[in-house]
């Protein structure tokens, strides 16, 4: 028998502090959304600030310096299920490497997939299924080390096919461009696996660039990626993905990642960075003031020069 999952269409607007404190616990199984773009960095910082520990994280593509690695570096993570964790143009992720190469700050268990097979885990879970087939993973070492992947004989073709288990995070935290007060969330540009992730999780926190009236959402129902019935909390967090970009809202802050990447080269540097940027501010507003609103506005102008919702040229 299924649990009642549907969340009521009521005003869910609250602060990030409230949302994280109400829904995330020690030991939580968390999935942070985004795919390079729309990284829920503000929420990652808040989880860190609240010191939630023994976390189990699940991500498809995780971006260093703004995502899961922050919690790993702080020693808050026991297990990490991923397809990819790296800095991209920002380069090597000192925190991730130290954790897996040297067990610093402490060893973490790792369970690996590919992007598609991780997406299939969310897709399966999003539909209430316990697994999905996939034609990736075959012949590779991924299923050799990950015993949750099963290679079976396809009952229709007789060929080998991989099965991956559904991933049902306790809480998914997803940053979006537009959301109404009851939680209907619209994602523009890169969607990642967030359509599935939101449905896969038991609880969902949406952080959003703008809270718009429901009437505005209803003008473009085909853009609603996450219906309100998946959503527990709606948090207004402008520039909530700073560092990475947010399509139609602001561009990546490439220098930021380069600077953080340098800081993270040593555990000591990471600790000082966290002290300053996470614990040294009260909340994301404090972080934005520290980064500087002018800098943030310049990133917004760079993005919106041609691409702004409803005014794309």
């Amino acid at each position, binding site marked *: 028998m299924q649990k009642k999952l549907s969340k009521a269409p009521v005003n869910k607007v609250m602060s990030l502090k409230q949302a994280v404190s109400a829904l995330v616990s020690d030991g939580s199984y968390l999935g942070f959304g985004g795919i390079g*773009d729309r990284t829920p960095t503000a929420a990652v910082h808040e989880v860190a600030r609240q010191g939630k520990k023994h976390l189990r994280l699940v991500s498809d593509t995780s971006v260093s310096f703004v995502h899961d690695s922050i919690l790993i570096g702080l020693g808050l993570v026991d297990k990490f299920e991923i397809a990819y964790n790296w800095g991209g143009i920002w380069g090597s992720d000192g925190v991730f490497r130290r954790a897996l190469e040297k067990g610093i700050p402490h060893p973490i268990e790792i369970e690996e997939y590919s992007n598609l097979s991780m997406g299939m885990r969310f897709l399966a879970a999003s539909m209430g299924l316990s697994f999905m087939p996939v034609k990736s993973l075959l012949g590779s070492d991924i299923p050799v080390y990950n015993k949750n992947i099963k290679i079976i004989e396809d009952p229709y073709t007789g060929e080998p096919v991989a099965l991956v288990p559904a991933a049902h995070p306790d809480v998914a935290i997803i940053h979006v461009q537009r959301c109404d007060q009851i939680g209907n969330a619209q994602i523009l540009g890169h969607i990642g696996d967030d359509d599935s992730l939101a449905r896969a999780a038991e609880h969902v926190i949406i952080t959003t660039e703008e809270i718009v009236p429901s009437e505005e959402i209803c003008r473009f129902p085909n853009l609603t990626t996450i219906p309100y019935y998946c959503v527990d909390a709606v948090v207004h967090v402008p520039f909530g993905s700073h560092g990475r970009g947010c399509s139609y809202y602001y561009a990546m802050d490439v220098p930021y990642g380069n600077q953080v990447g340098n800081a993270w080269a040593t555990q000591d540097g990471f600790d000082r960075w966290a002290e300053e940027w996470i614990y040294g501010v009260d909340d994301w507003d404090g972080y934005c003031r520290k980064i500087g609103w002018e800098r943030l506005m310049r990133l917004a102008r760079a993005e919106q020069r041609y691409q702004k919702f409803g005014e794309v040229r």
Partner: protein
Amino acid sequence: MAANIVYANDYTLMELMAATMAREFRDMETAFVGIGPPLIAAMVAKLTDAPNMTIAVEGGAIGSSPRRLLTCIADSTIDERAYACLPMWRLFGDQQRGFFDVGLIGAAQIDKYGNLNTTALGGYPNCKVRVAGSGGGNDIGSSVGRLLIMMRQEKRRFVDRVDYLTTPGFLSGGDSRQKAGLRGSGPSAVITDMGVFRFDPKTGEMYLAQCHPGLEPETIKYNVSFELNISPDVGVTEAPTQEQVEIMRSLDPFGLYLGTGRQVMADPEKGFDFYMEILDKSYETMETLFSKMGK
């Protein structure tokens, strides 16, 4: 080659690699392309010989015409003027279905059957050097029409057996790839800073097909751990054309992909202004490049 091709007089090794890779793409095809230099190579192809090639990136954008310099595969500018932005699982699903003709990825290690490691060096899960993990690599290597690989040539990267097999090439050769249930045709070319490698269609074994200008097969052999087969008619890699080099330099004027501009950005004082300046200038560059293509 047409008579009016003008080759570049000076170019970097990275530029040679990217230009050589660009020649592996074909017009009208769909290409699934990874981060950094692969994207430069694909862009060069699109701006020269393959104007109707469609580039898709893992983030989900298909066929976009970014307005400014793309700093990374998930840079929001990749959504600009895209034909479609799909959920990632849907894009990779399209790829698994067979809608992508060619894919281009990098790797930390490769073996003689073209199997790739992008996960860990020196053991697993306890490892000496941890890298990114599969990302879309395994998926692309499993299902894409033909797989292109771009990587650095080092003895410890061209190994007998990869420390961790992240992305399948021809597995143990012969029909082992097909027997494993994989769909795509497997690796088609590996391009390094020393040469171009291809694979025997029967055995799945890698062989040296071209040496970059000035290099002897023996030198390259020395930078490979396994017994390297050498094509009886091993050639010399064509130099980049002037046009290719110009495009690469205008796409990446500050060496973010192909060079060393990164550290300027890391400067806490000047980095941000420098970056804003790059972006500002890049609107014009992109406009010029795309206008060539009638966009």
